[in-house]
């Protein structure tokens, strides 16, 4: 069975919420919709205090190339526009809306009926995706329309759908595939049309055999689309790793997938694109997983943007006793949260409760030079060396040793028998080296 060819680990999967039906999170009294995502510039508020808004109404306009529209996820009255601490730990601009009823924009088709045919042109599709404010839902939140518009002179020959969900614990993409298989496949045909490609492959890790079977059966009705089961291996959901796993092409250092003729979209993003193009529905909600070893009710929830995570967690039975750390996202790449009073954002894929005893890192010991970090690095780097150089501020050496290639998957820190915080130091070095490179380019 295929997988990527360099490095990788296999942590305990702990997918406790697998197979749990998607439940709809109730509406709270107030939502706080972030105007900004983790990358790109914040969008510009186009509503003001006292305005009445409906579900799906534009409230933040994209501001710059890497930026996306933001829409209201509820109906009600704008209370204020202020800063709000978000899941990434920064205070960012957000629109506070007091919820009144649940009134949707009339243009949005709320029926659950499958709409297969799409007669729009490539440009119309891209415009709809852009207007709907769709960003990559795998976590990076990169605007989808930008990714689907290759730079001039570059042409994609294959679309790869990232349905790997390689993070332990998370199951939201898995459940979405089981419940919205046809919609996802229509979404794929729409993206294929926008890109002008005739071939698409859905990459699914083989710990989701039911999803592989379900999608394979459906895909028979969609020419050019196939499902590829992949050997379970982290970080297969990394874009470069997935391309290597599926079509055996390696994106060169510092380049993007289009260089090897591939475009990758996350499976949940694909579903959002279906809704945007076929149902006129902007990005106002997404599925997330609430889970943990002691979670009272691990499950998958459809949550409107801007709902405080605490509200969803309460619905799922609250924070279990003995929780030492709460992570927004998966255990390998998620961010630990200071509290749950942060709003649901487009990139929120899960809330994970980690038990007290697993929350504290073990004491750091000497590097025993076992080279396990080198063996597991999916980018072929030497994490032990980069950490040493980062500790000593050796920036030019770090650049030579390709620190900018690091995808921050955390396999090195996960593996290290001496509990060395390899990725912490590499990240620190990366940000410094990245700054040096940008300064040099600006000169």
């Amino acid at each position, binding site marked *: 069975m295929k997988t990527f060819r360099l490095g990788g680990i296999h942590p305990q999967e702990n997918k406790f919420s697998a197979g749990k039906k998607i439940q709809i999170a109730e509406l709270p009294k107030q939502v706080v919709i972030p105007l900004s995502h983790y990358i790109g510039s914040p969008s510009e508020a186009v509503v003001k205090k006292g305005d009445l808004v409906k579900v799906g109404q534009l409230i933040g306009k994209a501001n710059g190339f890497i930026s996306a529209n933001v829409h209201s996820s509820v109906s009600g009255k704008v209370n204020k526009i202020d800063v709000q601490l978000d899941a990434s730990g920064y205070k960012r601009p957000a629109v506070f809306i007091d919820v009144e009823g649940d009134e949707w924009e009339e243009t949005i088709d709320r029926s659950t009926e499958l709409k297969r045919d799409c007669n729009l042109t490539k440009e119309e599709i891209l415009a709809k995706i852009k207007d709907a404010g769709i960003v990559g839902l795998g976590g990076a939140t990169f605007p989808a329309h930008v990714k689907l518009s290759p730079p001039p002179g570059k042409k994609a020959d294959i679309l790869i759908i990232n349905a790997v969900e390689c993070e332990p614990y998370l199951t939201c993409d898995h459940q979405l595939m089981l419940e919205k298989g046809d919609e996802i496949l229509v979404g794929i045909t729409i993206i294929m049309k926008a890109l002008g490609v005739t071939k698409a492959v859905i990459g699914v890790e083989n710990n989701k055999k039911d999803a592989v079977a379900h999608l394979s059966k459906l895909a028979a009705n969609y020419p050019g689309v196939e499902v590829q089961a992949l050997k379970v291996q982290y970080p297969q959901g990394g874009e470069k790793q997935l391309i290597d796993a599926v079509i055996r092409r*390696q994106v060169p250092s510092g380049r993007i997938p289009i260089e090897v003729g591939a475009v990758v979209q996350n499976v949940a993003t694909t579903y959002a694109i279906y809704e945007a193009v076929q149902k006129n529905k902007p990005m106002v909600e997404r599925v997330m997983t609430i889970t943990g070893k002691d979670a009272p009710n691990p499950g998958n929830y459809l949550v409107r943007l801007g709902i405080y995570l605490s509200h969803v967690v309460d619905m799922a039975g609250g924070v279990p006793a003995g*929780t030492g750390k709460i*992570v927004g996202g998966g255990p390998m790449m998620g961010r630990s949260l200071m509290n749950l009073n942060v709003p649901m954002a487009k990139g929120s894929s899960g809330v994970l409760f*980690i038990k007290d005893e697993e929350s504290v890192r073990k004491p750091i010991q000497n590097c*025993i030079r076992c*080279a396990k970090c*080198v063996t597991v690095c999916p980018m*072929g780097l030497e994490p032990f060396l980069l950490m040493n150089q980062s500790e000593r501020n050796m920036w030019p050496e770090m650049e030579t040793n390709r620190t900018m290639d690091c995808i921050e998957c955390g396999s090195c820190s*996960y593996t290290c*028998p001496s509990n060395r915080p390899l990725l912490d130091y590499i990240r620190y070095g990366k940000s410094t080296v990245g700054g040096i490179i940008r300064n040099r380019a600006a000169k």
Partner: protein
Amino acid sequence: MDKLIISPAPHIHGGDSVSKNMTGVIIALIPALLAGLYFFGLGALVVTVTAVLACVLFEFLIQKYLLKSESSIMDGSAALTGLLLALNLPSNIPVWMVIAGSLVAIGIGKMSFGGLGNNPFNPALVGRVFMLISFPVEMTTWPRPVPFATTYLDAETAATPLAILKSHSGELPSTMDMFFGNMGGSLGEISAVAILIGLAYLLIRKIITWHIPVSILATVFVFAGILHLANPEAYASPVVHLFTGGLLLGAVFMATDYVTSPMNPRGMLVYGVGIGLITVIIRNFGAYPEGVSFAILIMNGFTPLINTYIKPRRFGEKAK
């Protein structure tokens, strides 16, 4: 809930630890140790126990009284050094020499550089080579293998196959005897089959990768094979070279020492080929009948250079 821990990702750890790796290697050495105990009996037991206890004790004392640092004897690395040293010694060597070798192994080979992770040379081999140079007679007089022997210092002696080759006198043991270990030699190096069981365990547990042992053994086989084909009278067959002396023990357990070997597969192959070449050169053209220890120590010295100039295969290096 009111005291949440904040830290960067990843938030889970695989559970591997230094002591798990050290214990793993010790477990992998058990077959070789059992073979030594079977063929050399009491002497093997005395030497092994002495070396392990001495190494652990010296590390403890040095950390407590000289370095005044926290003790690391529980990580198992000192015990492993002791065990490896013992397996590289003749079983009829006096106890005080074993203790002196342990002191050099731990004191000079390891602690003087800052303890585990910082030593450039394999500590057990530093101890062994010190003993080989200081006590040349005792270190090259091996007892004849007698199952469950109860004699220790006054055991009957036997030459090793390599010494027989060097002096061109005496008769080589049969290939079967070499494979199972019924021949003269250091107490842990004689049984090829026991060491290969240990190798399988190390590979299955993913404590080491195949690169170092395979490259060493393949190089020795090919290089010794070429010499043998060129002149079968003067040079022994590659099979004899593989199964005799410290080659297998060295290739599987000494050369693969984490701290002193290169840190990526390509570097490991270069290192392994180097050890193989030097071993065959010393065995066939040098003054000593055996050269694995020296070959490993020499290549240990090259390890930093290998790490600097030979880099792992980068992602996208061979982009289509």
